[in-house]
């Protein structure tokens, strides 16, 4: 697998001769279209950010008007009185625990599937793939009763365990090629030196698979942070709400007792963590998307 990481805007050598006039036209049209799309993406986001500083009265007065006072009143009241602070904390706990667990379990499972040969290996791999494709909605009713029967319905541990189980196929599926690509000789050398199975995994193989683990972890973080259906169906106690469902219920309340300023502030609070992750890992994210296609 050769990975082409060249950025598109780095010129690949000078073009022979002068650029024909047609090129300039095409380039201009391209810039206009791409610029228009970028505007379409960024304007709603900036508008939301601006609105989060406005009072409800200002929001209803005009969608364009800038807020009279730039302060964080909406943020404070969303965080404290609307329970966004609580939801935020719940989300951090659930996503944090689930992410660590699924990465450990997923890496272990992918390692065994990729590096060992045993009967049923293929079958496990394909059932993971099926678990990745089937809609969760099909399983949601039985899942509800599985959690109810073991007493974990409407609890954070119950939600964590479900997140881990449903993120597992994705994790195993995408870590599998990374472990397969690792050189077996190193593990064998460690074995000759007397390292047991456990040590070989944690001290030899796992560190080598770090790049793969990092990119799968980023995607899992986004997927879990954005997860909506599982909490809505399995976690209906308000004090245990995570952000995504808290936002949905906040928005449906807002219809009656309108405080759009707070709602916009809560939206911004929910987006900030993913924005931070995106800003830091933007290259890895787009790189991971890229690697899947270029062989």
């Amino acid at each position: 697998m050769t990975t082409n990481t060249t950025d598109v805007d780095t010129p690949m050598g000078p073009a022979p001769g002068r650029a024909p006039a047609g090129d300039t036209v095409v380039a201009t049209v391209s810039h206009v279209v791409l610029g228009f799309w970028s505007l379409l993406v960024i304007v709603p986001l900036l508008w939301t950010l601006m609105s989060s500083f406005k009072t409800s009265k200002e929001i209803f007065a005009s969608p364009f008007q800038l807020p009279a006072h730039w302060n964080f009143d909406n943020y404070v009241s969303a965080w404290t009185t609307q329970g966004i602070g609580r939801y935020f904390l719940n989300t951090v706990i659930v996503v944090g625990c689930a992410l660590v667990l699924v990465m450990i379990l997923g890496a272990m499972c992918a390692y065994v599937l990729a590096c060992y040969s045993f009967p049923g290996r293929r079958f496990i791999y394909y059932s993971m793939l099926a678990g990745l494709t089937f809609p969760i909605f099909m399983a949601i009713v039985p899942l509800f009763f599985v959690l109810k029967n073991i007493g974990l319905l409407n609890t954070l541990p119950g939600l964590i365990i479900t997140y881990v189980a449903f993120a597992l196929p994705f994790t195993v599926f995408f870590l599998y090629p990374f472990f397969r690509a690792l050189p077996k000789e190193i593990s064998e050398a460690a074995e000759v030196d007397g390292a047991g199975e456990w040590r070989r995994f944690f001290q030899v193989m796992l560190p080598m698979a770090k790049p793969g683990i990092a990119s799968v972890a980023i995607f899992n973080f986004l997927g879990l942070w954005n997860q909506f259906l599982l909490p809505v169906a399995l976690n209906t106690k308000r004090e245990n709400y995570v952000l995504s469902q808290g936002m949905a219920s906040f928005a449906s309340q807002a219809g009656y007792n309108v405080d759009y300023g707070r709602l916009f502030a809560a939206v911004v609070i929910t987006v900030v963590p993913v924005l931070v992750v995106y800003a830091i890992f933007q290259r890895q994210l787009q790189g991971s998307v890229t690697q899947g296609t270029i062989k």
Partner: protein
Amino acid sequence: MIDSTLVPTTDSGTGTAPPRARSRRPLTFDRVSFVLVFLGLPLALFLGFVVWPFLQAIWYSMTNWTGFTPDMSFVGLDNYQKLLHDDIFITAVWNNILLAFVVPFVTVVLSFALATMVTVGGASQGAARGLRYSSFYRVISFFPYTVPAIIIGLIWAAMYDPSSGLINGLLTGVGLDRFDSFPWLGDTTTAMPASMFVIIWGFVGFYMVLFVAAIKGIPSEYYDAARMDGAGRIRIAWSITIPLIRDTVQTAYIYLGILALDAFVYMAALNPGGGPDNSTLVMPQRLLDTAFAKGQFGLASAMGVVMAVATIAFAAIVFTVNRLLGGRQELSR
């Protein structure tokens, strides 16, 4: 399934058995505990919380279970028959089918067009050269992919708001007075297209990046040869680029189709009640309502099975169409 999307490497898993033969090893504690923890623990979770519920769903769908009492009796395909006569569910099915037709098509066409501009918008000579500053466009347009879907829905619900939304503000601002307090999400003719646009808005950037990567993987000789034969840009995109990134398009189409056959989060944010005349109601909304509001768990499970069948059917159709149009697996190698 967590709704993040990576593109599967097509050759994984189908390879030959790993080179190491691991038979005839002594069963030490190290080894036994290793197998139990490394394979047993993840598989136990996967079986208990993923596989088992999926299998149970098939059984439940053939019972009249209402959940909180232990008695349930086998009713065969009665629930499925009931669904055929449930007008609201049928409406939801058609809405999902409409979404599955429109959303993948528009998203793929739009993101392919943008990806083409990014990669070959630069020059008519040499390799697939990039447009200047194109990484700026990619960084911006990829971002919605990372924003929680429920938030995307809420932002656009606010954008579409009849009186305080930015859309009507802009439209009336340029003199289109008929859009003064026009209810985008409350009118039967616009609710569905407006909702579709929101989903497409969220995914175009992601697939643009995907297509850019695929297009850059095409050797420049193909482009040089085509140009020498006098092919223009459109002709090159149609006859060179599309056939060579066929498998990427297929992957994109299937992911988008799965998404469109669900579409729950977006619809729940834009129109929690199913929209005017149920014009944006989707199967999952009806399912959750049937299960957790009405307690008809057997019937709800049948809806879940219908969703799964629809998903598989969609994937099968995409594979078949790709085959019929001359797609060959060798092209991707």
